[in-house]
């Protein structure tokens, strides 16, 4: 103990917990940083769309607007997915291993279903990316968002595989919480993109 006194030790940190969840958790802050980056990219991509619209005459210049059905179906399912997503987040914070495992399966299935709808969305945009700048901007918005859906779907599947094959410890609950937070970002960022891609050609 005398060595510690010599070093001027005035307190002890070993009583502190060794995990945390939500905004206290380190990973939450990292995810926040990446959501900021991606959020800025979405905003700029939306800016590109609006800028090009400002330069054009009629909008869309020479193609029918995208069909509403698939995009709206995707939006409704995406919004509904927030219900199990928020539930899973609450169960993770309550350290409920069984509920979290079931929830991740549900989210993975929903993610796959959303990707199927997304494929139909691309097929019903009624414009190709190489038709004109309007087509390029529309495809860019949808492509950027699709990358995010895929990223979180991949994360959900890997996390699920991990939680089914080993004993769950508290840090895994923090990962589930983090994954759920990112999914909420994927949902929220879709709403302005949906408005632009589907209603922009009708209203702007």
């Amino acid at each position, binding site marked *: 103990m005398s060595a510690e006194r010599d070093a001027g030790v005035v307190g002890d940190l070993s009583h502190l917990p060794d995990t945390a969840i939500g905004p206290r958790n380190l990973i939450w802050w990292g995810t926040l940083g990446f959501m900021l980056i991606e959020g800025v990219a979405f905003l700029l991509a939306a800016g590109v769309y609006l800028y090009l619209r400002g330069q054009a005459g009629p909008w869309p210049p020479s193609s029918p607007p995208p069909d509403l059905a698939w995009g709206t179906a995707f939006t409704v399912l995406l919004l509904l997915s927030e219900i199990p997503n928020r539930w899973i987040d609450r169960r993770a914070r309550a350290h409920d291993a069984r509920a979290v495992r079931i929830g991740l399966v549900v989210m993975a299935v929903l993610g796959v279903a959303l990707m199927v709808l997304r494929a139909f969305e691309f097929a019903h945009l009624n414009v190709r990316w190489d*038709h004109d700048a309007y087509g390029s901007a529309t495809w860019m918005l949808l492509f950027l968002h699709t990358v995010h859906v895929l990223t979180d779907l991949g994360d959900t599947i890997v996390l699920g595989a991990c939680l089914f094959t080993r004993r769950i410890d508290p840090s895994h609950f923090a990962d589930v919480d983090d994954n759920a937070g990112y999914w909420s970002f994927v949902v929220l960022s879709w709403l302005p993109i949906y408005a632009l891609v589907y209603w922009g050609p009708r209203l702007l």
Partner: protein
Amino acid sequence: MSPRTERLARTWSDPPGLRGFLTTVDHKRIAARYIVVTMALLALDGLVAVDMRLQLAFPGLQRLHAQGFNEAFSLHGSGMMFLVSVPVMEAMAIWLVPLMLGQRNMAFPRLNAFSFWMYLGGVLMIWVPHIANVTPDLGWFEYAPLSGPAYSPGHRADVWAQMITFTEVAALAASVNTFVTIMRLRPPGMTLARMPLFLWAMLITSLMTIFALPAVMLVTSMLIADRLVATHFFDVAAGGDVILFQHLFWFFGHPEVYIIFIPALGFVAAIVETFCRRPTFGYVPIVLSLVAIGVLAFGLWVHHMFATGLPRLGNSLYTAASLVIAIPAGLQIFCYIATIWSGRPRFRTPLMWVVAFIVTFVIGGLSGLMTASAPLDLQLTDTYFVVAHLHYVLIGGALFPLFGAFVYWYPKATGRLMSEAWGKVSFWLIVGGFNLGFFPMHLLGLMGMPRRIYTYPPETGWGPLNIVATAGAAIAALGAAIFVANALLSLRRGAVAGADPWGGSTLEWSTASPPPPHNFDYTPLVKDRTPLWTGGQPQLDGLALDRRELLLTTPVEALPDYRQRSPGPSVWPLLTALAVGAMFVGSIFTPWALVLGALPVGAAVTGWFWPKRRES
């Protein structure tokens, strides 16, 4: 070495040899690599500049032809901006931030390693094609439509665009890491209001990077898409717009200047404090002006585009905004002068670099005020006046403080001091040569000499000032060679430094030089802004000795929160960078690279995040 130090050092050491080299997550080692590579490129891109100066020394020279000259200024500009200035500031942060925080590593050690490997990928992305004679040749911004598929067949423009992607991924990873490290890894008691100014500077820089860099990634991705899959973002005939390219580029490009400059202000604040033996004058105004610069920097980009024919109101607005940023920038300068004035300055090499910074940056700032004015800018744009201005701001405003910082922290990193005498010789040669080289360019610009010309006829009368500028460049290059030699020779021959050779005020000076793998034996407890000057150095115990653990504190008050497991050496960051790099390189040739390349990337990221057996 005490048994405690030994035990901690064992816990935080890398495996020996090549394995350790490839798997290290030690922030000091990663930062050292970053710094060595950026310095090597600074030398290389500097030599490219000397090559251009030789070409312009006399009228009518034909040694570098138009194509060679285009490649030279493209390599020089892109290299200096993307591969030297921004990464070297990040590297200094990666090395310094944990040490200033009394911490054992960054928040995300493997992300740190990934950032370096991606950066190295960016370096190879431009230099390997250069060796194969596929050098980008459209300047550092590669405006569309010149860079589009119609005017730039081949792969020179793709090489440039993908180099950007690599370096921006690296920079964004480093910035998120720095941001979270400063917000959550401060030692107990280091509230936001007690942070050293350098940490404020890096906090603001990392946020600026997060907001600015997506713009350049987006615009280069759009360019690649136009070239690869025939989108029409910049194709006017199909509803695209070429000015859009400039808007996106400069939305990034202008903040980028401040992303380089604000860390330099952090170096200046640290150096004046130590060498004037008093806390830096005006802590609160300096922090507020750093924030103001960070915000205003996003409202200025259009002043790079005055010549594109924008609406008149736009020109007036951006002229005003550009003039306004002189206020917080000027305020900082007055605070540093006040610190020197009211302190007891010791004019060692680091402080001399600060003085050179103040003088040079003020000159660059004043020529900036001139070019900020739209009517004057229309006369000066694309002339050597702008070349002079931007080098005064970037070299004077960022590199001079960087050289000072290099000399200042060199003993902490190596355990030895650089030679003062040779340091002063290199100082005078670089500062003198720089001014001799760049001041005449103001006059050349006013005489009408355009930028980016590879030669000029004698009757222009530009010859005499050009030979002066070339002589200046040669003198500065000699000074730089002495600086490098001094740094290399002092590794062995320099005076032994000890923990705190300069009498510094911040926590990094409380540990050994060079710091052990774990940086600090105990967690420091901070009670004011200059912990080492107020004495006592109270410390906290309780972090694990036999596994890697970091202390997390609350974001504002820095109260102890919890102990976070910190990952050890891992090969996954390297494998992930290789997979991502293969995808980027492949996507120059085929869009399918994005689809097929995503599979190895997914596999590598899964390996990265899959919990280790030991932990579960």
